[in-house]
């Protein structure tokens, strides 16, 4: 499943449109990740504060969104463009790939909440595919 030319435009346009609230999106998505899927906290045992609205969660959410915007800019070759991030996730973080799906779902719930009118089914499918491809690029070096 790859993104068509039209879907790439949809993704770029949508992410540009929501960019002014990207910190908020990231923070909300992370909060939901650790509340709705508490097992994900296992990756954040080193945080002083594991609360969903705490500073570490918010910061992590902002970091994730930064990575997503980088992926948008490299949408034509994500595996190549995200090589450093891929190596980070494979050799250092070693996050089980199932969690990429979970976080993607949380991100889309937040997008739907904050941008109800804009997050139409057509945009939803393009974003869903994009996030799945980002996850794939991040797991590129796993084995």
């Amino acid at each position, binding site marked *: 499943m790859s993104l068509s030319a039209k879907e790439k435009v949809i993704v770029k346009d949508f992410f540009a449109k929501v960019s002014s609230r990207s910190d908020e999106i990231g923070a909300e998505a992370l909060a939901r990740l650790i509340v*709705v899927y508490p097992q994900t906290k296992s990756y954040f045992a080193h945080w002083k504060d594991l609360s969903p609205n705490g500073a570490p969660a918010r910061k992590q959410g902002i970091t994730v969104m930064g990575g997503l915007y980088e992926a948008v800019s490299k949408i034509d070759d994500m595996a190549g463009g995200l090589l450093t991030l891929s190596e980070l996730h494979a050799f250092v973080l070693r996050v089980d790939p199932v969690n990429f799906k979970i976080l993607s779902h949380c991100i889309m719930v937040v997008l*739907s909440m904050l941008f109800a009118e804009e997050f139409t089914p057509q945009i*939803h499918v393009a974003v869903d595919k994009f996030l799945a491809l980002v996850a794939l690029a991040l797991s590129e070096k796993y084995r």
Partner: protein
Amino acid sequence: MVEWTDFERAPIQSIFSKMDYDDVGPAPLSRYLVVYPWTQRYFGNFGNLYNAAAIQGNPMVAAHGKTVLHGLDRAVKNMDDIKATYAELSVLHSEKLHVDPDNFRLLADCLTIVVAARMGAAFTADVQGAFQKFLAVVVSSLGRQYH
């Protein structure tokens, strides 16, 4: 046996009691058919599902969407034994409709997204947690009788 706290029961009852089935009903099913197009395999007799606009305007999809959503009412009323409540429906989906149970999860995800859109900021992380727990029990119960 699934344990529910009062903090979990409340938002679930509230969401469904406030739901406008005419408005919300068609939305999760049509979204599911657009976002996961392979699911259209179960709706061969629904006519035009050729593109997103056709799906969203299709009256059979709208009607069936409402049917499915009303199907959740029974679980909302019988939260303490959803497994038994859906035993027959599970058999139906397995033996007669031959639906891959992963579809229940896909539709549940679309319902979550639709409810999030309707509720906005009121769909807090805790509410999302309770709602998804409820849907997970529904999904599990519908797949329970498959063999």
